[in-house]
């Protein structure tokens, strides 16, 4: 699913990869692809992740991973970093999720009473990136659907999610709700429907696999 999500990134894009699964997308990018990766803590032009033994202690991404730069990288403060996000300069963000609703609402910052780490930069990314896609497991650890009619957890932003990549499928959020686009290899449409907590429109004819 991470490799499939990486194909979402087109040449020339400015992209922010959120904490969690989305961070792994970087390992699946073609080194020859011209793409500018942005991180909230003040860097455009992220290079490959570095192991601790070759890391620079002053060079991390927003998730705390040690990263490198590329020729043309720029550093800036937190106000500039989010000016870039809010003004529409971010073409794409890939975020993790606790829940996504069929109208594209995203909940990914608070599970009341259990885990409330705070939203960090997630609200601005979700609300202002030109395209927001989600990378998540299809169900939570207890097997409950993460894709639902409506979000039950506190939301991060309303109606922001365009596409969801899961371990089972690629699903678009359309004006009519969730629509199945692709299936993971070896997974059936019926299995995806059963694991989804809302109606799922199926395409006509053969469904592509990834």
């Amino acid at each position: 699913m991470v490799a499939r999500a990486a194909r979402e990134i087109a040449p020339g894009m400015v992209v922010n990869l959120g904490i969690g699964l989305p961070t792994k997308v970087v390992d699946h990018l073609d080194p020859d692809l011209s793409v500018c990766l942005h991180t909230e803590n003040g860097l455009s032009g992220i290079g490959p992740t570095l192991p601790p033994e070759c890391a620079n202690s002053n060079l991390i991404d927003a998730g705390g991973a040690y990263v490198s730069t590329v020729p043309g990288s720029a550093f800036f403060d937190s106000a500039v970093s989010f000016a870039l996000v809010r003004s529409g300069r971010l073409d794409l963000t890939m975020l993790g999720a606790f829940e996504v609703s069929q109208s594209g609402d995203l909940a990914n910052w608070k599970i009341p009473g259990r885990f409330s780490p705070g939203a960090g930069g997630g609200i601005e990314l979700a609300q202002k990136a030109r395209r927001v896609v989600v990378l998540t497991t299809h169900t939570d650890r207890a097997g409950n659907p993460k894709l639902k009619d409506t979000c039950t957890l506190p939301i991060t932003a309303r109606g922001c999610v365009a596409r969801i990549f899961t371990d089972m499928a690629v699903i678009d959020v359309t004006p009519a709700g969730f629509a199945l686009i692709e299936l993971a290899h070896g997974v059936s449409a019926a299995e995806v429907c059963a694991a989804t907590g809302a109606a799922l429109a199926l395409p006509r004819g053969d469904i592509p696999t990834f």
Partner: protein
Amino acid sequence: MRLADKSTTMQEALSGLGDGATVMVGGFGVPGTPFTLIRDLVRLGLRNLTVIKNDANETGMGIDHLLASGQVTRLITTHIGLNPRAIEMMNSGAIEVEFNAQGILAERIRAGGAGLGGILTDIGEETELTAGKPRIEIAGKRLVVETALRADVALIHAERADPFGNLRYVATARNFNPLMAMAADRVIAEAERIVPLGDLAGDDVHTPGPFVDHVVALGPLSEEYAVVRR
């Protein structure tokens, strides 16, 4: 004409600071966190502090020392997911935590530093984070009023400083430092290196000296500044 020398000791820079102070602390994770100034604040033993910082660092590092010593009553922040103690203290009511969207925290601080009363934004409009905040309608858009933030003291980490307080940051250690360095009544910068006046070229200055009150030279950097091996 000659520019003033603001270099001093940690003790002198922090003297006169009282209980109940509001303290801004630069840094995003390890980069840019003024670990030495935080240690001095712990030693000073001030109580009932309001701390404004992007995050709560990690167990045994930076802000965690202030939390462990029970000196903090309120934390204004964006994300504390890497510090279990902060989450536990929030859940038990030992500290009050006010979450902000990260860029909005930055802008509130910038506004405070720029002598403004606040900012208007649609960020977080439908979330818990803006519940109870005033709204204003401008050109048909409903916007949240986010008030400016200032502090009694800002603790800043710079890679380089000159004696007048011109500061330069390095890589992702810049983050909130230049914003907070404008937004407090007393701005204290710890610097890895203090260079003679003129050695830091005017075009290379990130924070101009007039914003800075005290410059403190760091000795050899402690382990806290190093690469974290998780």
